């Protein structure tokens, strides 16, 4: 990662404040207020208020957050503040989220009101306000304006379903270049950054275990069967990191390839997530399958995060249509586009 100072300090912050206890309590429904306050004071939530130019920093912070499975809506609040800043809406303090976040969901904004339904809104019920994106409009609404059906993902992170029948809101037009499709794409990249971090954690935990766990008289990491699988785990780790970092750069520099790159990053991280979780658990044997052992904090997130902001299949179809339009002769220029 280019920004090693930021990465190192974010890793320290999350190691200190997203502790085992905090993670366990969050799964029981306790809001990690101290962690949130620290993140807010570090300025992480405002990293995108000046626009997409700080995407590398955002991705760096989220990689560290994903590594430590920080149970807070970081990408969502970053994106909500980004949208508010872009539309010159004052962003309320505290927890923010965005909607819709599912590739098929649509909310309608018109006449000062929001209608429709949207699923799996991260921390919807806990949020002070929700930034609703409807094509070229953004509307800021308090969570009390909607009916909610509470839910969660496999890591017990809140994923609530909202429905609205004319909920009142303050809507603004978004500037050129910012719309629902962009928000879904940036959400996919930010989630992929968390995934890359969680994947790195799975690699680190598994490496440590392979060197410590002794069977047949030696650490299991000495066995070729284990080494071969660990190498595959490392390959997927490297690929997801590279995809995320390069996509973030493409976004910062507003390259024509940025949309392709964001989709590729979510696809690659999504493909890696399942394989990494599988190998990491296989490496650990029964202990990795327990509540007591820490591996599940990252693997349950990986299994859920790969489906959020569009899964591999969704983004692959998007990319595939772009490739088909380019045609056989256009394939290579598309892959190599600056």
């Amino acid at each position, binding site marked *: 990662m*280019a920004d*090693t100072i930021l*990465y*190192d300090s974010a890793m320290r912050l999350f190691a200190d404040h997203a502790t085992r206890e905090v993670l366990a309590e969050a799964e029981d429904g306790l809001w990690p207020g101290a962690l949130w306050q620290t993140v807010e004071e570090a300025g992480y939530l405002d990293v995108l208020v000046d626009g997409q130019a700080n995407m590398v920093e955002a991705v760096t912070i989220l990689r560290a957050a994903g590594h430590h499975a920080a149970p807070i809506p970081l990408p969502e609040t970053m994106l909500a503040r980004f949208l508010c800043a872009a539309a010159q809406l004052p962003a309320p303090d505290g927890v923010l989220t965005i909607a819709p976040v599912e590739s098929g969901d649509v909310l309608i904004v018109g006449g000062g009101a929001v209608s429709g339904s949207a699923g799996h809104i991260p921390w919807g019920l806990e949020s002070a306000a929700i930034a609703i994106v409807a094509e070229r409009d953004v509307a800021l609404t308090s969570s009390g304006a909607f009916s909610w059906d509470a839910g969660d993902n496999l890591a017990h992170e809140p994923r609530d379903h909202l429905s609205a029948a004319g909920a009142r809101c303050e809507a603004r037009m978004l500037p050129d270049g910012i719309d629902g499709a962009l928000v879904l794409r940036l959400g996919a990249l930010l989630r992929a950054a968390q995934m890359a971090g969680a994947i*790195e954690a799975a*690699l680190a935990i598994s*490496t440590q275990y*392979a*060197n410590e766990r002794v069977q047949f008289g030696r650490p299991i*990491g*000495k066995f*070729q069967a*284990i*080494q*071969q699988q*660990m*190498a*595959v785990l*490392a*390959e997927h*780790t*490297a*690929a997801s*990191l*590279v*995809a995320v*970092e*390069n996509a973030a*750069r493409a976004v910062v520099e507003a390259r024509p390839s940025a949309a*392709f*790159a964001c*989709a*590729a990053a979510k*696809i*690659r991280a999504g*493909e890696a997530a399942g394989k990494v979780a599988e190998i990491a658990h296989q490496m650990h044997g029964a202990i990795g399958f327990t509540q007591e052992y820490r591996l599940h904090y990252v693997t349950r997130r990986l299994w859920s995060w790969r489906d959020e902001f569009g899964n*591999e*299949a969704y*983004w*692959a*179809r*998007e*990319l*595939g*249509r*772009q*490739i*088909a*339009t*380019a*045609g*056989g*002769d256009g*394939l*290579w220029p*598309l*892959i*190599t586009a*600056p």
Partner: protein
Amino acid sequence: MSVFRFDPVDLPPECEALRREVRGFIADELGAGLWRPNSDFGSHRSAAFSRRLGARGWIGMTWPRRYGGGERSFLERYVVTEELLAAGAPVGSHWIADRQSGPLLLRFGTDEQRDEFLPGITRGEIFFSIGMSEPDSGSDLASIRTRAAKVDGGYEVTGAKVWTSYAHESHFAITLVRTGPAGDDRHRGLTQLILDLKAPGVTIRPIDNLAGEHDFNEIVLDQVFIPEHRRVGAEGDGWAQVTSELAFERSGPERFLSAHQVFRGLVARVGAEPDPQLAEALGRLGANLWTLRRMSLSVAGMLQAGETPNLEAALVKELGTTFERDLPELARLVMPGARQGDRDEFERALAEAVLHAPSWTIRGGTREILRGIIARGLGLR
């Protein structure tokens, strides 16, 4: 922090200008019907093409001008290489000399050797092969038995090398031989010699591959005299020299583009409006290809900076060859009615890829050896 590093690389503007130049050259070549695209660098060659490339200054691009090189960056070389491979140009004849033998001589060779070989390589007139594997030494390279005995003025070499691609067409082979005892770590006593493939005592026998093509050879060496001035580096330094080249050998675009004509043909055959299943297959391939290229470019950036990223190179090769091996398997399943045959470019590419794919995860370090290197890099042994 990670045990590996892949800093993103932005190609400078001169690289994109060069890319346009290479694409123009390729379009002219294809327009003139000079070759048929095949992206597998190990099975597609033309000495005449290599000479045309040499005339353009696209062999030995990074080497000093005094040896015929262009003093250009590794990233510029990367762009030329990836464009040629993606287009399926017949790069095989000069490939080893350009990628490995020339850089080896620049690093460890004498001025006399550089003057003798490098200008000819850059003109696409001198081709090299690699003499490493032996009948009893594959992945376990340190166990080689070809012996070089010291004689007046040089060495007398006896033994056998196998899987030597293009030995029947190349002029020389950088040959790893045993000049002394192995020692405790088994890596001592190895030396690299420049073998003249036309020298007396050299017998080259074809080993046809399963596709019926003659790329491989066995080289039998019976008391072959190699003069002292053809030794590369110091006696006994062979192992260190061989391993120093691995990052160059393992991280390039040839490690994920071997089946590129299948991908290209698949896209052409699918048409502009694919059904969701086909679109998804194209998208997954595209995402993986894009990611591999970015990884490979990062290694090129590190090589440009003078680093030796052997772990990163092993990661690129392992992931890349897995991709190029999986690609034809995916393509044949998603394209209804696809056969490996010769009805069109896609079918021909598919047939070639299916037949050649077994070699991709073997050449240049097997999958198992690479995974061992990666595991060691993780700190596992």
